[in-house]
């Protein structure tokens, strides 16, 4: 008989209130993908669990299998990034990262790579010299590990290597089209300027976040790259990533006080 309880490391991705004092917590684990479990009584101040189940926290937890949802029996914080939690733009980016991981995470199957990726990004978001770039890199990598990597080196139709210049990215076909194939493709085409394509390729070719560097990018170019990735992701997950809007506002609000976010 399989054990009634299990224990795992996890990242707290999302929370939904349940009943009067409980919450449903969505946790990303390396071996079981996304786990949805009930945390009882965590909205009361005397809770022992609650302080350990905050969004973006990395935890070690135990839970028992339930008929419908599992029930968390124990949780301990392994890492809670104070640097991120006390800085609004970084915190809002961390929430965005969690929501994105939540949309891509499979339920009930192994997701070591996604776990490792999300963990490393949350860890580096605090000291990151360019948190915006790190977040875009996370988007690129999450597309890679979940099998939706856009093809932007060669034409997605004729496989010819793309020459420098402006291109069209075909959402349905999952890649860029060369000038000869512009009329082909599946549909949902976005314009990608030559400079934006260069940034996208840099993100895709960088396998470790500490190799991203600190390229100087114009505000308009950042907006373009962000727009392209967010449309591509929306096409893949078939819904809006809700925290993106607040993230933009938080970054803008802090822009005057914090030169790293001045855009």
């Amino acid at each position, binding site marked *: 008989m399989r054990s009634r309880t299990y224990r795992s490391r996890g990242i707290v991705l999302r929370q939904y209130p349940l009943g009067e004092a409980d919450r449903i917590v969505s946790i990303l684990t390396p071996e079981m993908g996304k786990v949805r479990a009930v945390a009882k009584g965590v909205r009361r101040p005397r809770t*022992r669990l609650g302080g350990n189940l905050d969004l973006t926290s990395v935890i070690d937890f135990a839970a028992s299998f339930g008929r419908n949802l599992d029930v968390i029996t124990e949780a301990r914080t392994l890492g809670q990034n104070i640097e991120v939690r006390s800085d609004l733009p970084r915190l809002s980016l961390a929430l965005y990262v969690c929501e994105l991981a939540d949309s891509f995470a499979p339920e009930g199957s192994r997701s070591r790579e996604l776990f490792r990726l999300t963990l490393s990004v949350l860890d580096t978001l605090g000291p990151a010299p360019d948190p915006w770039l790190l977040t875009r890199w996370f988007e690129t990598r999450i597309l890679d590990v979940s099998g939706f990597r856009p093809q932007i080196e060669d034409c997605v139709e004729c496989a010819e290597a793309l020459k420098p210049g402006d291109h069209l990215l075909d959402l349905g076909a999952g890649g860029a089209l060369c000038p000869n194939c512009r009329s082909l493709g599946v549909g949902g085409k976005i314009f990608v300027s030559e400079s934006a394509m260069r940034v996208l390729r840099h993100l895709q070719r960088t396998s470790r976040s500490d190799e991203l560097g600190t390229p100087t990018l114009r505000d308009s170019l950042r907006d373009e790259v962000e727009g392209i990735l967010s449309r591509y992701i929306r096409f893949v997950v078939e819904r809006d990533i809700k925290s993106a809007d607040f993230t933009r506002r938080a970054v803008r609000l802090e822009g005057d006080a914090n030169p790293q976010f001045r855009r």
Partner: protein
Amino acid sequence: MTTPVSYSPAPIVKLVEEFSKLPGIGPKTAQRLTFYLVRMPEERARDLAEAIVGVKERVSICSRCFNITEADPCDICSDPRRDQSRVCVVEEALDVLALERTHSYRGLYHVLHGAISPMNGVGPDDLRIRPLLSRLRENPVEEIILATNPNVEGDATAMYIHGLIAPLGISVTRPARGLPVGGDLEYADESTLGRAIEGRQDF
């Protein structure tokens, strides 16, 4: 599966149904309450019904602090003995009651009616943040206490509001976090204990 035949009179079924929609009340409690009401003198049942309707008819939201109130402005806003130079920002009207029970705070309040929850699509515009700013511009205060809940969303809300009022030159504080009175140190969770140690004070 067919629905089992109910032998209860329709008004009882209806009341049970209504009760079970309330927070913390399941079908069993709803039934118990209903049958208690059946035996209750009619007069008391009427009082209860009137109290419920009265809440809906006479209670509104204060136009200054957005707390729930019978008069507008509310009793706290219109009390001259309260410290007019301090405003405590809270998420819910229930938080005002909790803070009032402490008898430690004599200033004014501002109820946001929620916290920023980016993933659930609750942004700054869904809360009473803009009225707070205009209120502060009209009646400048010395201190703003950001008493949103001590979790990620409450922190994000506090930081966002802080960013907006920083240019106004008002002192902004946040309640301390730490150990519950009467609790054991060894049973405190790591994050609370961590914060408590960080925020330690001179003895």
